[in-house]
Each structure stands twice: as C-alpha cells, then as structure tokens.
C-alpha cells in the first residue's frame, strides 16, 4: 500500500539559510499535518491543511510557512534557519475528521 512520502530524508543547512520540505500524502487523503520533533522530545503540531486550505495552526514560527497544492502535496518552507530548528519533521496524512493519521518517514533537518 502507498505510504506518505517525504523529501528529502536528510537536509543539512547553515544558519540563516532557507529550507523546503515536501510531503506527498497517501492517495485520496485530503488532510495533511506537519509535526516537529526535537531531539528527545515528543512531536509538536505545526500546521495542517484540508482541501488545500489551512485548517489549523500550532506553535509554528513566523519564519515558517506552508501550503498545500492542487495535487494535495504540501511544502513546509523554513527561512532564516536557527540552530534550534534542527529536528525531525514529520508529515502525516489522513481523511478529514477524527481519523487515523499516517506518518511519513520524516525529514531530518540539521542546522549548523
């Protein structure tokens, strides 16, 4: 069965650079969620999209933005990167509502 695809899997950037993370949800899933997991921490919700519209927003820095495109893939754009942005970024997809969220393998971002 198709799973959530995230690219790249690993990314190394320097401080103040920009990064773009991509997420391709499971076919026919209309909702995408982004989570950030710092070292030794639990995942924290950043933002979600339903049918290409932002549906909810968590503790996402103003330096970050995201969108969902017509093909339902989503991109998380991160600018002016800081050392503290180093984390594992998960994308999850599901059908809207209180349904299961299927997680991608994550993108490990390292900021040096």
């Amino acid at each position, binding site marked *: 069965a198709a799973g959530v695809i995230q690219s790249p899997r690993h990314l190394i950037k320097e401080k103040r650079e920009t990064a773009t993370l991509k997420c391709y949800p499971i076919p026919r899933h209309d*909702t995408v*969620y982004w*989570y950030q997991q710092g070292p030794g*921490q*639990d*995942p*924290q*919700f950043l933002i*979600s999209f339903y049918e290409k519209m932002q*549906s*909810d927003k*968590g503790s996402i820095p103003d330096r970050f933005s995201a969108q969902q495109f017509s093909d339902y893939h989503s991109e998380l754009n991160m600018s002016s990167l800081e050392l503290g942005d180093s984390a*594992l970024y*998960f994308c*999850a997809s*599901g059908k*809207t*509502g*209180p*349904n*299961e*969220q*299927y*997680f991608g*393998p*994550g993108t*490990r971002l390292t900021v040096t």
Partner: protein
Amino acid sequence: AQTVTQSQPEMSVQEAETVTLSCTYDTSENNYYLFWYKQPPSRQMILVIRQEAYKQQNATENRFSVNFQKAAKSFSLKISDSQLGDTAMYFCAFMKRSNDYKLSFGAGTTVTVRA
C-alpha cells in the same frame, strides 16, 4: 488545551513477559480519541492502537490492549508476550473529536525488551 502525561520515561521487560505503560490526560472535552504510537529506532511513527472515548469497550490489537478509564482520564497500554521488535519509544496521543484534529502527544516512554 489538552495535556497528556506519561510518567514513566523508561521501562524494561523480559521477552515474552507483559509490560504496562501509563498515560493520563487532561481535557474538558467529552468526545475525543486516544492513540498509542510506537517509534522504533528507525524513528518512523507507527500507529499501535486507537480508542474512541464514547466506547466503553477497551480496544485490542493482537498483543496490544488498552485500559481506558474515562472518569479517571487514564489510558494505559498493555503489551503482552513482549517481543524484541517491540523495543521502541511509545507515545500516548490525544485528538479532539471536532474542529481540529491535531494530535497532542505525551513525552513518551522508552520500552526495552530484553532477550
């Protein structure tokens, strides 16, 4: 806001034995969902089990079962016949039933299964 508390940072269990992970949560919602996710060393997040708050019957998935106590706001996970592949971090998570469907996670419990 919902908070999820996992009071056991680490647990160790002998292969084939049983281990129980605790989770408590705080919410003013009446309808919600609870989940246990497993994160092995690969860091992949894998759904283990799900419980709807309006169901009194405890969910079961093969060797995994929960003890859901709504009044006590408690949601423990029991792993029976532990296997080496169960070694992972386990996260308890909360989801409201309406308006927003983000997951709120606990801090996690690291489970190590010993051979």
